[in-house]
C-alpha cells in the first residue's frame, strides 16, 4: 500500500491535510476549556462593541430615512385667506416637481392632532378657546435633493397668503450628524478592536505554539511543510471566531432587550414611536462570517510573527 507508486495525489493529500487540521484545530480549545472560554469571551466583547454601534446606526439610519421620505413641510396660511386662494396655493404647490402631494388640513384635524400629542394635549385642555390657522401639508418626493426642497420652502415663504412655513431641516441635520458620528465610531472601534483581536490571538496562538513546540519540531523533521503545521492553528482561530461571533450576537440581543425600554421612552420624548431592532438572520450569519474571517486573518498574522521554521534549531 505504501511506497512511491501509491503516494496520494497532491490534491487528495491537500484535502486530507485540511480535514485533519480542522479536527486538530477544533480540538485545541477543548483541551484547555477555561482558557478558551476566556479567550472567546474577550474576542466576543471586541466584536460586540463595533457591532453594537453599527446596529444602533442601522436603527437610526432607518428612522432618518423614514423621516426624510415623509418630507413633512407644514404651510400655515394667513387667517383672512379665502378658500379659492388656498386652493390656488395648493395647485401651485402641487405643480412644483419636488412635491409628491399637498392637501389642506382643516382646523378640526389640527385640533385632533394636538389632542393626541401627550405633551401638547395638556396645554390645549387648559386653554378654553384657541384659533388655529389653516394648514397645508406638503409631502416631497422621495430622494429629492435637499437644495430643491429648501428652494421650495423659500418660494412658499414669499407667497402673500403664507403666514409661516415649518420645515424640520435643522432636526434632520442634527440627526444626520448623529448617525454619521455613530457610523464613524463603529468604523474606528472596529479598527481598534481588530488590532486588539490580533494581539489576543497572537498571544493565544503563541502560547499554543510554545506548548506544541516538541510536536511542531517533530512534524517538520518528518516532512511536514510550514503550511501543514500552520493549518491546525489557523483552524483554531476559525473555531474561536465562530464562537466569539455567536457570543457577540447574543451580547447584542441581550443589550438591545435591556436598552429597548430606555431608548423607546427617549424617542417618545421626540414624538417618535420606535423600538430598537436587532439583526435579521442574514445579518447574524454575516456577523459570524465576518468574525471567522477576522480571527482567521488575525491567526495568520500571529503565525507569521511566530516564524515556525525557526523552531527546528
Amino acid at each position, binding site marked *: 500500500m*505504501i511506497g512511491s507508486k501509491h503516494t*496520494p495525489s497532491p490534491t487528495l493529500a491537500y484535502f486530507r491535510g485540511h480535514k*485533519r487540521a480542522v479536527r486538530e484545530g477544533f480540538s485545541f480549545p477543548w483541551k484547555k476549556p477555561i482558557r478558551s472560554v476566556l479567550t472567546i469571551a474577550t474576542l466576543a466583547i471586541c466584536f460586540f462593541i463595533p457591532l453594537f454601534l453599527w446596529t444602533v446606526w442601522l436603527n437610526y439610519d432607518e428612522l432618518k430615512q423614514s423621516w426624510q421620505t415623509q418630507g413633512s413641510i407644514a404651510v400655515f396660511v394667513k387667517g383672512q385667506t379665502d378658500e379659492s386662494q388656498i386652493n390656488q396655493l395648493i395647485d401651485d404647490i402641487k405643480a412644483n416637481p419636488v412635491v409628491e402631494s399637498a392637501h389642506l388640513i382643516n382646523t378640526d384635524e389640527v385640533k385632533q392632532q394636538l389632542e393626541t400629542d401627550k405633551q401638547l394635549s395638556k396645554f390645549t385642555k387648559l386653554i378654553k378657546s384657541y384659533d388655529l390657522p389653516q394648514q397645508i401639508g406638503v409631502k416631497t418626493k422621495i430622494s429629492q435633493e435637499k437644495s430643491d426642497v429648501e428652494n421650495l420652502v423659500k418660494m412658499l415663504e414669499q407667497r402673500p397668503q403664507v403666514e409661516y412655513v415649518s420645515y424640520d431641516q435643522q432636526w434632520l441635520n442634527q440627526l444626520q450628524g448623529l448617525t454619521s458620528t455613530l457610523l464613524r465610531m463603529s468604523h474606528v472601534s472596529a479598527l481598534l478592536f481588530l488590532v486588539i483581536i490580533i494581539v489576543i490571538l497572537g498571544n493565544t496562538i503563541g502560547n499554543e505554539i510554545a506548548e506544541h513546540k516538541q510536536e511542531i519540531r517533530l*512534524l517538520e*523533521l*518528518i*516532512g511536514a511543510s510550514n503550511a*501543514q503545521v500552520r493549518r491546525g492553528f489557523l483552524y483554531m482561530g476559525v473555531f474561536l471566531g465562530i464562537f466569539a461571533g455567536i457570543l457577540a450576537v447574543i451580547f447584542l440581543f441581550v443589550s438591545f432587550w435591556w436598552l429597548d425600554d430606555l431608548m423607546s421612552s427617549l424617542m417618545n420624548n421626540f414624538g417618535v414611536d420606535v423600538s430598537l431592532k436587532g439583526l435579521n438572520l442574514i445579518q447574524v450569519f454575516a456577523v459570524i462570517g465576518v468574525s471567522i474571517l477576522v480571527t482567521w486573518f488575525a491567526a495568520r498574522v500571529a503565525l507569521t510573527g511566530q516564524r515556525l521554521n525557526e523552531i527546528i534549531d
Partner: protein
Amino acid sequence: MISFKRVSKSYGKDNKALKDVSFDVEAGEMLFLTGHSGAGKTTILRLLMLMQYASYGQIRVNSMDISSLPSSRVPAYRKKIGMIFQDHRLLNNKTVLENIALSLQIRGYSDSVSFKNARAALSQVGIAEKANFYPLELSSGQQQRVGIARAFVSKPDLILADEPTGNLDPDLSLELMQIFENLNKQGITIVIASHDLFLIKRLQKRVLVLEKGELIDDFSPQKNIYTP
C-alpha cells in the same frame, strides 16, 4: 545514494564541527558513523536531514544537491527520509499507533491506510500489543522500537539513526540492530551514528570513523573491523 564532497561545517570562526569530509554511500548500503562525542557524527546526520546547512562543500542525496536546497523544497526532501533519534522524540499525548501513523498522515495517506500500515510496522518491531499505549507507559527500548517503526512505515529510501541504542542494554541493542538489518535487506539505505563498538563489530558493516570533525578511517565489511 549519498555523496559528501569536501564538506565542512563550522559554528563561528574557531568551532569546526566537520573538516573537509568526503565519502560516498551506495544505495542499499548500511553503514555506521562512529567516533567519540563531538567527533561530528550527529553533524553529518543533521546535514543530511537539512536541520543545518554545510558551511563549505557539496552534499548530494539521490543525485540531488542538497547543499543549497531552498527551504520550500525541504519538506518534500525530508519525506523521503526516515529519522530515528536517541531521545525517541515521540509525542506523549498520542498513542503508539498514532505516533507511527502521523508519518503517513503527513504524506497525505488516509487515516485507515495510515493506521493499517502503522499496525504492520508495529508488528515488525515486535510490539503489536502496545498499539494503544502512550509512550510514557513504555520502556526505553519499546519507545525506540516505536521510533524505528515511525521511521520506516513510509518506506523511505534512506533511514538515518542517531545513537539509536544509546540508552539500551546490549541484548536490546542487538535486537534493534537486527531490525535495522531486516530493513536494510528490504533495500533501504541505513546510516547509523553510534559509538557502541561492540555492536559495530557484531554487525560487520562499513564503518566511517570520525575524530574532531575529520574522517580518519573508512572500513568496509571485507576489511578487519576498526579497533581503537
